[in-house]
């Protein structure tokens, strides 16, 4: 049983829309793969652990982003070292924007990001709300989007996938990839709804540690119930998302 450290950044400020669900699902998938996960919640003025095996961050309002900004910048170098060493990051919404290149706020001010994701975010007046369906290399990803942000990726950067229903980044694609890391604006939260996406992070954790995951280990788990519920929930969401989409 390999102990792995999951670092969640700012669970209070950047965790207002069920981001805890992403942590729960990631921990469940790590456990199912044979790891023993421990969660380190990093709060403002706290200390990051010496090492991390996967980093997770969620979304929060502008005031919360401003609030943790100083602490985030003080820890930016460590986070960049982790990312460069192949630690997978999973980042949702404004947390992802702060790990990107920059965020342009509604008042025109620009916050520089940590620079882990090749992503420039601009806050816009129109809000995008509704179910979203994205086709990615790990299959279909579904969830709920609720943001007023347009994402532009760096020249060679890959998105998570292409949008088949919903809005995504605003140009037919959704999210951003950086090595083993995934950034997205798909909420819901996205990892419980998409176990395959959580498993992609688990595979990333294993790869970096040089551990080979056998299919048997992945199957010999108690995730059948959540897998079943996730599958049924996904079917309903796809039905509703395409329904709404075809009406537009």
């Amino acid at each position, binding site marked *: 049983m390999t102990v792995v450290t999951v670092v969640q950044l700012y669970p*209070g*400020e950047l*965790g*207002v*829309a*069920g*981001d*805890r*669900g992403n942590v*729960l*699902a990631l921990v*469940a998938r790590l456990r199912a793969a044979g790891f023993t996960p421990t969660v380190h919640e990093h709060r403002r003025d706290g200390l990051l652990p010496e090492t991390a095996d996967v980093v997770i961050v969620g979304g*929060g*309002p*502008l*005031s*919360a982003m*401003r*609030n943790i900004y100083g602490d985030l910048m003080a820890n930016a170098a460590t986070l960049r070292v982790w990312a460069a060493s192949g630690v997978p990051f999973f980042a949702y919404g404004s947390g992802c924007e702060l790990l990107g290149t920059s965020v342009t706020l509604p008042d025109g001010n620009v916050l520089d990001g940590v620079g882990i994701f090749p992503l420039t975010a601009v806050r816009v007046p129109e*809000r995008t*709300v*509704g179910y979203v369906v994205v086709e990615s290399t790990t299959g279909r990803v579904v969830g*709920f989007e*609720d943001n*007023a942000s347009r994402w532009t990726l760096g020249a060679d950067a890959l998105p998570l996938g292409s949008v088949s229903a919903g809005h995504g980044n605003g140009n037919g694609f959704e999210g951003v990839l950086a090595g083993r890391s995934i950034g997205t604006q798909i*909420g*819901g*939260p996205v990892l*419980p*709804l998409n176990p395959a996406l959580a498993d992609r992070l688990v595979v990333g954790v294993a790869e970096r540690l040089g551990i080979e995951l056998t299919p048997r280990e992945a199957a010999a788990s108690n995730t059948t*119930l*959540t897998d079943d*519920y*996730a599958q*049924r*929930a996904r*079917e*309903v*969401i796809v039905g*509703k998302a395409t329904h709404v989409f075809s009406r537009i």
Partner: protein
Amino acid sequence: MAQRSSGPKYLVPVVLGKALRTLGRLRGGGSAFPGWAVLRLAPDFLQDATAQFAHGIVFVLGSNGKSTTTHMLSEVLRAHGVSVFTNPSGANLPQGIASSLLAEVNLFGRVNADIAVLEVDEAYALELAAILRPTTVLALNTQVDQLYRFYETERVADMMLDTLAVAQTHIVSNRDDPYLSKIDTRFAEKAAVDRPDISYFGVSEQVIAASAHGLVNAHDYRDEAVQTAPRFALAEVTATSKTGATVLVDGELVEVVLPSKGLHYAIDAAAAMAAARVILAERFDTSAAARAFAAMKPAYGRGELLQFGAEQVEFVMFKNAASLQLNLDAITDVPEQVMLAIDEGTPDISWIYDVDFSAIDHVDVITGAKAWQIALCLAHQGIPIGRVEPDLKIAIEFMRGLEKPSTGLKTWIVNYEQMMLARKLIGFGEMENQR
């Protein structure tokens, strides 16, 4: 303020509006459409019809508890012999308020009441305040609510703070709410005579400490560094029991019976009594207030008990994570039978993962269009689930088929839309003017 004369200019719009309202009710159910029509024909209707109340107009705002508190305040005022006009539960947009006025006005657009107590949607509150010029504004709480609609919680907080600030005479706010308590800082530079008076309601430290998840008010990340002097609460919850609460109102202890379980209901009661105290001044009588609470029926779906064959159904309604958590925290005896129903009336359900469900030890059936998403969350939290059945009708029959619980009580935890549907399915119609 000069007395406005309503006069015959409202004759046509009012007659038409009343006719539309009657037609609408014959068809079944209430509607905001008559109100909308009248506002189109006579844009001043709202302003004129409401400019005549001797005790003015009260706005009740808040992320949670508007309907309950509006109901409580209305009943407490009535127990003091004050005649009250109020809008029915949830009819809190301008056209809904105009519609409910239509039921009460005479042909000259006049309402026979001493005071209007109106629950008002946060997003329309400031706009409505410009028309109705409320004498008293009561703000209950800022809790994370409907982010798909409000975007950010601090935006809702500002809507409420801005509306509080335009109260003509009295501001009543929540001392323990990180955003709303700071209303006094807006008037820091002003002499007392130039501003409305500010009163607070609150909860004692001991009671907060005993609550599993505290008060679940939104954290103020914007002004958290702002330090202020301790604030006095005109009405403070000092104890809660299974059926009621003790509230200290201006030095006098009042024992109130609550329409339902939960600290949030006790806080709503304190808010209502603080408002009644400032509106009635010396006329406020704690025994009249206690009498009002003892006679009060629960508001629609808030702890309401409905007959279900030989058993009873207890409805626990929620709108967001805060109201669901506070309702769960209020559960003292783990319910024997539970149905959980959520549909697309709650578009974004992500927040369900922020709710701690450990107050219940299982759910018999999860239903509604979002049933599978809820089941997924509960499975991740380790709560056993009997069955997932998205069709509410089938789920209700499943609940009916379960053996009668020893308490004779089945608990249905529902969002607003599923509550309305479930009531209908078990033979209880809508009650438009239930207050």
